């Protein structure tokens, strides 16, 4: 009899609760020794029913609801929503308000990228970088607080404009913070491109070619680090981006180092943009008039969040509440690249590659995962749904 060789499959569950993940998500990593042979992702642990909730709130309240999709990039969610609603309502936003929207968006990008740098350092076991970049990020948090009154979920937008204005004192404070951060960013860029141990964890790791990035539908800095020059701010300028054009930062190498470098170089672009905006602030009102009811119609709104393209679909039935809102966050677009890229890498590289896309699990959880194994009826009764839920969350399937 022939000896049967069975390769034992050793799976390591990462998540839903795991120190590498700051939010719930689940990765089943199959390894042979330390080499990953398969990775399966399961999302949906932080599904909050925001889209459904939006249908029972009026247009104004919804802005604050959508801001809470993401704690890090709340402003960009509100911007995407406001742009869409204003287009439906045919409201003209004053130029000064549009510029301030861009200003806050770029400040938000700075704080998001610095935060990400810290997370990447932490995943690489380089906690010093984590501590330092998060300390420096406080400068931008202070500026945002001075500008809008909040450190997170700043609600700078209102339908028809913005709620905050920039005066001279604030302008100086922002410029000062940007000066400090620019110096620090030069230092960080030097660290991440010269520190031998950090480079060992990033150079040549998780390489995504340009064609892979296009096929997998990667967006944002993840795609730009693979040489895909794609940025909504350039392709379809919204708000004031047509008067303040952005230079796309692209790196063709496609590895983790490229993803770090692209984000660091984007920071310089943010600093330049913030300075330019503060030098050329148009005068005038910061809010326009906004009707309570929005005319019937549907529209699509695309913006560039710090993590990539953020997509909103809005449908109005002419009342003061939306009929349907659909949100697609950049993380869901980039997630497929993670499960593809980790195969063949060391287990130790998995958190790094995952962090490389700057994932935001709670943001992307939009849909409920319905029965994958058995048949999936079109309509579920309450009893069926309940049984399904008990079955799924009880732990092990029999």
């Amino acid at each position, binding site marked *: 009899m022939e000896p049967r060789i069975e390769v034992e499959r*050793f799976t390591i569950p990462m998540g839903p609760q795991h*120190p590498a993940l700051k939010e719930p998500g689940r990765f089943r990593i199959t390894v042979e020794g330390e080499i990953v042979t398969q990775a399966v992702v399961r999302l949906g642990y932080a599904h909050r029913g925001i889209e459904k909730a939006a249908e029972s709130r009026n247009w104004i309240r919804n802005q604050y609801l959508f801001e809470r999709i993401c704690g890090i990039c709340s402003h960009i969610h509100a911007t995407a929503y406001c742009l869409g609603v204003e287009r439906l309502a045919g409201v003209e936003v004053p130029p000064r308000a549009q510029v301030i929207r861009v200003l806050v968006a770029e400040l938000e990008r700075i704080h998001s990228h610095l935060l990400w740098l810290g997370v990447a350092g*932490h*995943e690489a*076991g380089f906690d010093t970088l984590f501590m330092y970049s998060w300390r420096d990020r406080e400068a931008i948090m202070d500026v945002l607080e001075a500008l809008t009154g909040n450190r997170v979920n700043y609600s700078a937008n209102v339908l028809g404009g913005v709620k905050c204005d920039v005066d001279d004192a604030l302008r100086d404070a922002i410029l000062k913070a940007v000066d400090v951060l620019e110096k620090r960013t030069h230092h960080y860029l030097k660290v991440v491109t010269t*520190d031998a141990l950090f480079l060992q964890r990033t150079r040549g790791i998780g390489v995504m070619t340009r064609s892979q990035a296009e096929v997998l539908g990667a967006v944002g800095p993840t795609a730009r680090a693979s040489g895909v020059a794609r940025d909504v701010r350039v392709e379809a300028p919204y708000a004031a981006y047509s008067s303040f054009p952005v230079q796309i930062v692209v790196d063709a190498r496609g590895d983790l180092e490229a993803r770090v470098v692209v984000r660091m170089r984007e920071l310089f672009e943010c600093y330049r943009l913030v300075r330019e905006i503060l030098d050329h602030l148009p005068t005038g009102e910061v809010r326009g008039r906004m009707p309570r009811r929005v005319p019937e119609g549907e529209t699509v709104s695309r913006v560039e969040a710090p993590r990539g393209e953020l997509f909103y679909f809005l449908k109005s039935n002419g009342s003061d509440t939306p009929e349907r809102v659909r949100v697609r966050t950049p993380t869901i677009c980039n997630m497929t690249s993670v499960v593809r890229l980790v195969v063949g890498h060391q287990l130790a590289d998995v958190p790094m590659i995952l962090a490389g896309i700057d994932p935001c699990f709670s943001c992307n959880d939009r849909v409920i995962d319905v029965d994958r194994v058995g048949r999936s009826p079109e309509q579920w009764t309450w009893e069926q749904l309940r049984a399904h839920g008990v079955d799924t969350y009880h732990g092990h399937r029999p």
Partner: protein
Amino acid sequence: MDTVRNLFALVLFPSGLFLLAASLAYEWVDRKLLAQFQNRIGPRWFQPFADVVKLLSKEEVVPRGVDRTLFLGLPIVGLAAALTAALYVPLAGLAPSFSFSGDLIVAIYLLSVLTLCMGLAGSNTIGRFSLVGATRTLTQLFSYEAPFLLALLGPALAAGTWRISDISLYARDHWLILTQPIGFIVAVIGLMGKLELPPFDAPEAETEIVAGALTEYSGRGLALFRLGKGVEMVIGLTLVAAFFLGGVATPLLFLVKTLGLLLVVAGLQAVLARLRIDQTVGLWWRYGTLLVFVQWLLIVLLREVRL
């Protein structure tokens, strides 16, 4: 009289209570220094002690699928081995309590028993994180152990004896860091590997495998293992300081030199990113071992020339 003396050495000084207190103090210094380097405030002075008290008072959960005796016994064996090693080391600048020819090997072996116990403790459970952690712990053990031992044998060669007390006596008149700089560097980095400090913390890399081999441990077992680690740190620092930094003749010298060494170790922890386990193995076998052999060759050649 002999019994009293032995009992004193085992329970109070140098092993036992003194060493446990010293290990907690050194753990605090290490954590505080690292925190300061990272622009944090760091723990208060009694935090390591409070941690141990808290862990000791907690329920020890024995998970399903483990050998109960091993699970409960391994932390005790590990800590006992580390404490025993202290008897042969010139702690606090005083002569070792016990000493015989070749006790250097025994002391280093006893320190490795602790790591071995942690590896076994990890592979004893059925948890995935523990198993991967245990594999990494043992892999790391095999990679740093040889270069570390060889580096410490450099002073032994120079002194012409493998007895710790004699080597440290010899080292008082010879700053061996000057004549054996490579050995010193390998010994310090080897010590960091032994203690699984960053950048050699792949066996307990929290972002990958939670707490590594000790993931299933809580309560007393975890407290004992942590104490063992602290004890290992004090003994390791003492050995390196006594061998390479001109000996530790008095308690003051001991304090200054070991704390100075700890400052270097904490600084290295702060500036280095974690190595993957394959990179760790590569580093030790490709560079560490080779460098130590070069050092050995130099020592032997120089001795020949001098004779």
